[in-house]
């Protein structure tokens, strides 16, 4: 670990010099093969989180493959707006790319930004994680059926759930699940939290009854025997958590959604550079190291090339718009 990071330090300090040098030598080098100088990979979320970890493994594989440093830069804050905006507004020269996340199909419906999936050159979809249903270890529900029954029979507002901020992906997952059960989206009261980890802490402390974040995010508390996962909202079980059933097999509800992550650049990137990156990303995705890393964390892997990623996002954007309007979370 230490040696890995020290290498990054050298690479990073080299970047400053290389960038300065490249600025002077740019005209001469412009004809060279892409990439001929370090590439910046912007991550809209903080260090240590799942998006950061995914971006770092992808970057290290790209670096080895393409022979130039791929430096991960965390641009956090503003519920993801700051980082997503930094990717979209960068020069579309292939030297600034970034990891975009499901929030790009949600934030503009909330009126937080004008950015939407079409503000980017999509390169590759790499990962998607379904929401889970997690309760405290000592909760009186044996399984998801018991919980669903309790939610249905008790009056609205009896149960409280958390997992992310108001209108975040796990909030919408709850709303979608409740609607699929024929209930109103606010039948279970949403308590906004600052991400999955604080929500799991609230769950363990008895502050909320349900957390709908993904199972990998809930894993630390589950491993510490403070929480139990009852279900995942996905078409199939996750091999890492094979004992957790899907909503479909238990409740007969065919509802699934997910938080996805993909690599994209600013709009109007040159086609040959986008093509080179897409090919390299495909090699990274197929790399055993990437697959092993993702499965060790319990993260789902999904591949979509540039065109598939674009249509996946367009479809997701429309679905999110409908869901958020139905839940009263859309603005304007």
């Amino acid at each position, binding site marked *: 670990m230490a040696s890995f990071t020290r290498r990054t330090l050298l690479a*990073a300090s080299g970047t400053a010099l290389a960038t300065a040098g490249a600025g002077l030598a740019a005209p001469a080098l412009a004809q060279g093969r892409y990439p001929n100088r370090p590439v910046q990979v912007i991550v809209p979320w903080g260090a240590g989180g799942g998006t950061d970890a995914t971006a770092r493994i992808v970057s290290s594989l790209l670096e080895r493959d393409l022979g130039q440093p791929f430096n991960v*830069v965390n641009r956090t*804050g503003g519920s993801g707006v700051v980082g997503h905006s930094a990717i979209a507004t960068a020069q579309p020269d292939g030297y600034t790319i970034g990891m975009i996340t499901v929030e790009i199909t949600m934030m503009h419906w909330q009126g937080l930004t004008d950015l939407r999936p079409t503000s980017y050159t999509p390169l590759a979809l790499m990962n998607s994680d379904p929401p889970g249903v997690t309760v405290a270890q000592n909760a009186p529900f044996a399984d998801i059926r018991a919980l669903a029954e309790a939610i249905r029979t008790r009056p609205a507002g009896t149960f409280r759930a958390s997992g992310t901020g108001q209108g975040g992906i796990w909030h919408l997952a709850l709303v979608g699940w409740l609607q699929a059960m024929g209930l109103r989206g606010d039948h279970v009261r949403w308590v906004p939290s600052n991400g999955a980890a604080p929500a799991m*802490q609230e769950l*363990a402390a008895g502050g909320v009854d349900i957390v709908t974040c993904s199972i990998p995010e809930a894993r630390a508390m589950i491993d510490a025997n403070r929480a139990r996962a009852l279900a995942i909202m996905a078409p199939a079980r996750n091999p890492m958590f094979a004992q957790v059933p899907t909503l479909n097999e238990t409740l007969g509800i065919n509802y699934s959604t997910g938080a996805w992550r993909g690599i994209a650049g600013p709009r109007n990137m040159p086609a040959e550079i986008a093509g080179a990156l897409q090919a390299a990303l495909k090699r990274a995705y197929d790399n055993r190291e990437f697959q092993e890393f993702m499965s060790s964390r319990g993260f789902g892997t999904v591949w979509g090339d540039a065109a598939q990623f674009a249509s996946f996002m367009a479809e997701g954007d429309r679905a999110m718009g409908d869901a958020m309007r139905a839940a009263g979370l859309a603005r304007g």
Partner: protein
Amino acid sequence: MDALIQAFGLVFDPFVLGVIAVSAVFGMFVGAMPGLTATMATALLVPVTFFMPPVPALGAIVTATAMAIFAGDIPAAMLRMPGTPASAAYADESYAMTKKGQLNLNMGVNLVFSVAGGLVGVAVLIAAAPLLAEVAINFSSFEYFWLACLGLTCAVFLTNADAVKGFLSLFIGLLLATVGIDPSAGAPRFTFGEVELMQGVNFVATMIGVFAVSELLRGASTVRDAGHVVVQQVGDMFRGLGAVFRRYWFNFLRGSAIGTVIGALPGAGADIAAWISYAVSKRFSKEPEKFGTGHVEGIVDSTSANNSALGGAWIPALVFGIPGDSITAIVIGVLYMKGMNPGPTVFTENPQLIYAVFLIFILANLIMLPLGWAAIKSARQMLRTPRNILLPMILMFCIVGSFAMTNSLYGVAIMLAMGIFGWFLEEHGVPVAPLILGLVLGEMLEQTFVQNMIKADGNWLAFVDRPIAGALGVATLLIWAVMIARGTGLLGARRAAAA
């Protein structure tokens, strides 16, 4: 046990040990320079730690601050200029001792009791933090709401300034904390359509501005003056220490205990610990008339206290994410940057990193003995560093550090603006520590309040329904009552004087 072995592996790595050695020398230098503080040492380390894994990054901060707090005693004893505000409480006493011809003993007492006090603070941290984390794992937003209230109240209660000015500073901090995306409804506030403002006012960049840039603005005149003074050479500083310890061992224990507790209280750090323990020492001394004439007793209390406060301040920072002093406020920023989000879960998820921090704390206090000796011996050369080389370097570090916090020029802009603003506030006698705490805890206060109201369906009694939340709430309200009583009492006295 596994985690402890892992921690040893993490700390006794050549790179980490190298970082500790370099930051120890750096901390000694910054602390010994009048006008440069331990908080500034931490702020200047931010850009460097940015490129390091968590353990060396935290190690650098722990080591540099421990050294800086001790090193502040050196110019206090030699020039009557405290190197850091933490030595201000006993600078006169210490200088008086030097004038009596006891510079050797004075330096020895400062060094050895700094080391010992630091170790007491660490021992309490190691014992208390994991236990507290066990309790804190059951804390919900109700408990955190009251903890935030208590922390903010302490910040005002413990400042040396006028309570009104303390509250003014606190409310400015809380106002700044509202900039950005509203934590509960997700709506942007005070952003004026500016994307960068959506991330809010970065508190580490703010602290770099308030604690470093405002100091540069103040002219750092003391740094220049220091160069002109001829400093005496120090002889054998360890002679006579045994007698001091036998006579004043209780002062040492009391000073360390007070220091640790004050350090653990949010908003008050080593400087206030030193003031309070010096006052306590004088109040309970058998020979209070000797205080101020170069008497060693008060020095034992307060030099132990300011170093023990460092360890104490890490307790709430690690367990609750509530900084115990301005140094740990920066540490919290670094922890988030390294993905080691503070809170009770960090003790279960990354125990090896926490143990590594503990080990570095012990190590730092142990190497303080030889390094402190070397620093005292070379004080003459150190205090002559020309200001025109030092200040531009500090500004450079400030710029790099604030850039690193946001990865954009936004951090630099915040740093410069807050530097000027902080200087303006301090020139008018408004303390800046409550502002920082308001900025750091504002989001927690607001978010937990909204969460509580949602969970309880607007029922106010729920705030004191859970036993620990109730106790914390009562404690907060009691402190408010004391403050109001003090305030109105003061007003009454003033009115009487006017009449």
